[in-house]
């Protein structure tokens, strides 16, 4: 297919996918989740069922975009995510990273903006899936640790927002604080997207010249013990871990690229 036509097709396909994402979300809210809360009364069980539904929905969305030719992707060492109680961190090049991770991680947990918990359309599914709210300020660290101890796989993007292409990684310290204060190893995920699409500040219809290829690779767990020496304040341990993670991600992504 000539590249101009292919490109035009990908704009149309992206619009269709976004529309179906919205429509699917609406369907889940008005039809699926009301049934779940009616039929599954036990809270832990409802959490499991809800997370499975979200995962299925996101998997379908990922598949839809691939089938429509918006991108291609490959997964490396993804079996490392098939465990429980993980603290998963990832870099954040595109808008859809979270969709990928929620699709491939079982019992995935994530931090959801406090505003969405009050949103009448969103709060049903969010509550049913029992995600962590960011509205509790610093108490969020404890909430995240508890969520992981309950067996959930918490997904965090330490950059806090999408990466700026070409700029060095700047990680916030939340993920490191959760690791240090909960004595939890980190499971790193490296997301690459070439050429980049759906980056921050880019309009969705500005699709790249050719369909991007995603590589999502899972690294070996990063132990937290080196940052937990006695006498080292936790805040300092978290700072050192944050610096090391920034360096780690810079090296890993340079190696892959």
């Amino acid at each position: 297919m000539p590249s101009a036509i292919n490109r035009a097709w990908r704009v149309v396909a992206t619009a269709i996918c976004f529309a179906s994402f919205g429509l699917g979300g609406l369907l889940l809210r008005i039809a699926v989740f009301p049934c779940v809360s009616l039929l599954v009364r036990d809270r832990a069980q409802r959490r499991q069922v809800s997370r499975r539904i979200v995962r299925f929905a996101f998997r379908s969305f990922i598949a839809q975009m691939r089938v429509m030719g918006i991108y291609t992707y490959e997964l490396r060492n993804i079996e490392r995510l098939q465990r429980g109680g993980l603290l998963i961190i990832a870099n954040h090049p595109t808008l859809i990273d979270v969709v990928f991770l929620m699709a491939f991680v079982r019992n995935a947990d994530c931090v959801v903006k406090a505003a969405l918990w009050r949103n009448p359309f969103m709060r049903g599914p969010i509550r049913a899936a029992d995600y962590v709210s960011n509205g509790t300020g610093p108490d969020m660290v404890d909430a995240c640790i508890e969520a992981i101890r309950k067996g959930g796989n918490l997904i965090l993007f330490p950059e806090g927002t999408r990466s700026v292409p070409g700029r060095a990684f700047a990680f916030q310290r939340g993920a490191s604080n959760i690791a240090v204060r909960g004595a939890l190893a980190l499971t790193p995920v490296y997301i690459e997207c070439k050429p980049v699409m759906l980056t921050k500040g880019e309009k969705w219809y500005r699709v790249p010249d050719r369909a991007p290829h995603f590589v999502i690779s899972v690294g070996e767990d990063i132990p937290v013990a080196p940052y937990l020496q006695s006498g080292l304040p936790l805040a300092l341990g978290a700072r050192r871990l944050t610096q090391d993670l920034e360096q780690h991600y810079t090296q890993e992504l340079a190696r892959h690229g």
Partner: protein
Amino acid sequence: MNREQIYEWIVGVLHDTFEIDPADVKPESNLYTDLDIDSIDAVDLMLRAKELTGKRMQPDVFKTVRTVQDVVDALYDVMAENH
């Protein structure tokens, strides 16, 4: 403790807990933008303040605090109430 001593105490805590160089700290330094303190660090700072004053800092007091001098003033007020 007078304000000067409290200030010295804070400079020491910032160094021990967050490795902030005392040379970088000024009374007008903004904790969040100049000294890279985040909300999690602020909780640690409140705990240390409690050790000093023997009183629990009200979270809303700490929310209004922006600069090192604000912390000094808040702690001074708390300690003055004790007498």
